[in-house]
């Protein structure tokens, strides 16, 4: 059986020392090992940016795709082979900026993948610009007067668009993060885990300390009902979004089981040849 070590690669992460992404990687390695998965059964698709490098450090099949395109890549992968455990990972710029359209539609379809977003409220690899989750008034190289836009409310968006599993985690709490990852990966359907993962180099506002002060942990709330979307949205509104834990989950049909061409056999394992009588019948329909 594979251990956490089996999910490590020889590549040394090039993230800045103290980057929140280190714990995301470690928690993910721990989660898959504890779930008893083998490296060849897992595929990790990443986007672009600091977060996108995660596929280099995680020993499974992987696809380092394009800006904002991790979700359609992961969708194609999962629909081609539903037997694989497919995880998509990226950043807030990647996933909620250029990839926002894909995000909402992947939620709607309920593709059976886990989507981990390393949310640091800033663009890191391009050296510190305002991101879709930066607070209004956030000053950066691209918003010297302070950001004029409202931040994207990613988890709320997921909930109102029919997500079947929505959670938030914090890089400062690897234990909770690991538990959430395990539940997210085990969940049948689309699972979003938005991870607050501070950028220690460019974001001097949303630091570990700042998050620690702000965060509300639903695990510590009495009578929190993760099946109740209104409850989740209320708690999120009260805490201005800085909430961790499993916020919402529901049972919904999984896309690959209901889509056009749904089959028990993975598409990648099907016969390529049609039986001869089928060929004839098919051509007959064009007369």
């Amino acid at each position, binding site marked *: 059986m594979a251990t956490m070590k089996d999910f490590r690669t020889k590549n040394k992460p090039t993230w800045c020392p103290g980057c929140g992404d280190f714990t995301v990687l470690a928690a993910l390695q721990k989660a898959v090992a504890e779930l008893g998965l083998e490296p060849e059964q897992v595929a990790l698709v990443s986007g672009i940016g600091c977060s996108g490098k995660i596929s280099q450090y995680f020993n499974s099949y992987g696809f*380092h795709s394009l800006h904002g*395109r991790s979700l359609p890549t992961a969708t194609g992968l999962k629909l081609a082979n539903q*037997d694989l455990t497919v995880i998509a990972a990226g950043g807030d710029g990647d996933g909620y900026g250029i990839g926002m359209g894909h995000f909402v*539609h992947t939620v709607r379809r309920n593709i059976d993948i886990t989507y981990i977003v390393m949310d640091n409220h800033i663009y890191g690899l391009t050296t510190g610009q305002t991101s879709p989750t930066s607070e209004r008034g956030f000053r950066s190289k691209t918003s010297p007067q302070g950001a004029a836009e409202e931040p994207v409310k990613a988890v709320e968006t997921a909930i109102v668009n029919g997500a079947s599993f929505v959670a938030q985690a914090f890089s400062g709490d690897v234990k909770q993060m690991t538990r959430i990852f395990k539940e997210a990966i085990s969940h049948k359907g689309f699972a979003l885990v938005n991870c607050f993962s501070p950028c220690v180099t460019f974001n001097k506002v949303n630091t570990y300390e700042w998050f620690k002060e702000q965060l509300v942990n639903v695990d510590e709330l009495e009578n929190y009902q993760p099946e109740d979307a209104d409850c989740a949205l209320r708690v999120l509104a009260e805490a201005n979004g800085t909430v961790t834990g499993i916020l919402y989950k529901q049972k919904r049909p999984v896309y690959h089981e209901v889509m056009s061409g749904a089959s028990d056999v993975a598409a*990648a394992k099907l016969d390529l040849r049609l039986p001869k009588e089928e060929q004839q019948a098919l051509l007959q329909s064009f007369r």
Partner: protein
Amino acid sequence: MNTLATLTWKVGGAQGEGIDSTGDIFATTLNRLGYYLFTYRHFMSLIKGGHTNYKVRVAESPVRYHGDDLDILVAFDQRTIDENAHELTEDSVLIYDSGKLKSLVIPDGIQVKLCPVPVTDMAKELGSPIMKNMVASGVSAAIVGLSADAFDSLIEERFGKKGDSVVESNKAAVRAGFEFTMERYGVLKQLPNPQPADDGGGHLFISGNEAVGLGALAAGCRFLAAYPITPATEIMYTALAHFPRYGGKVLQAEDEIAACIMAIGANYAGVRAMTSTSGPGISLMQEAIGLAGISETPLVIVDVMRGGPGTGLPTKTEQSDLNELVYGSHGEIPRIVLTPSTVEECFYYTAEAFNLAEKYQCPVIVATDLYLGMSKQSVPVGAIDFEKVTIDRGELISDEELLALAPGEYRRYAVTESGISKRSIPGQKNGRFVAMSNEHDEGANEEIEDPETRVQQMAKRMRKLNAFDPSVLSVEYDGPETTKWTLVGFGSTRAQIGEAVKHLQDKGVKVGHLQIKVVKPFPDALVKRYLSGAERILVVENNATGQLAELIRARVGFHDRIQSCLKFSGDPFTVEEILAHCKLEQGVGL
């Protein structure tokens, strides 16, 4: 102009009044009777109103072009007469809805035989104005000498589910139109001789788009993601109609970017996957084409070209994406661009695209256009044969080979002489790699700062296609070694070029026809060989800037001999237009 024994028929009216169904019923019936047909739909980007028409050219042998002229025009409104007058000759028959068109205007200088028929009134009397398409079918049957019951079996098939009374009233509508016409006008245009298939069932009646879908299915494609766009949507419809039965997945994506990336993800996972689109969609897919190139993931894209740029002419044909397909996407990648020219080639070239994509682990684009994609035509039974499709999955690494390696030893992007490295499929033990959109080393690790690795990997990718043999698919030449004129084209214009060439040959002109069917990698040597004996070269293409001519000049030369015959109005070429060009330029007596 017709050099074949043919008959041309057209029905026109406002969009939404049953023009397509009239054309479809008439054409399908004739196809089943053993005629060879080519049909062309002229339509506008709106749902109701405007002008639409459906033209059918009927012949004794396979025909690929809808014809310059018109023998019979069935007009439901005045606009149909105005917009199609240029196709009428003094021998044409004009059937019009006399109840609706009380003050008929025939354009000056047009002499036609007029056949007024109160089509809508007759349909109303029989119970519903909707049935005017059936009345018109009966009228048409009489004019061309078919029997009144020619449509019976199709009516039973189409309306059987709606009950006997619906079937009977439709048959009655056909008979009413038939009898009215026989009484007043009789047979005015005799059909050519039918050539029934051996089993008596008629030929296949199929569009380029449908053939693309079947070709993909025959090749083992089991995943299509696409976004609806005219004129490519029919490919998705074909996939939806036929893939699911065999476990093939079809997904309507949120946009073309997603569709193309999903196809890449699915190909990476080991299924044969594709996407289909047209102009604006192919532009959105350009970043994905680059991704497939550098990550060395197989990918098949079908681009059914339409008038551009921007939203351009959504419902009209053009061949103006060529440059984009050949040169598009940032950076440099190996790619293959195929340009099939017939329905049969749509089938075989699409099927082969999957072999090429997996063999060379690169994007393969199949470029057709609205004219080829949406025109239904008859092809002989057996001309589309699943058994003739070979499946070659290229360099896949086996489980045994992987297990013989130490963990981590497999190098997905190993530098090889051929430029192609063995591919593993997720799920295979010891086959782990990360498909990379960043530059990388042999083991799929990012090495973007290392110039040596960069050069090695770029050179590896760029030499992949050195093994591509252009002699198999890329050109077809018909003509003598030396010519006065050699006409060159790609894609759907083949039909009109072919007829123009035949016409010139009949007039004793030494003429050749070079059809280019692969534009990337460009078959330089073959094109040079076939064009070197030509006094004049006429490159015929549906675009404004002569993109194919430009490509020939860049790759092969012959600058002083090449002339362009261009059309970018949205309509396909007529044979006359091509001939006029030769006449004009050379003073050839026609």
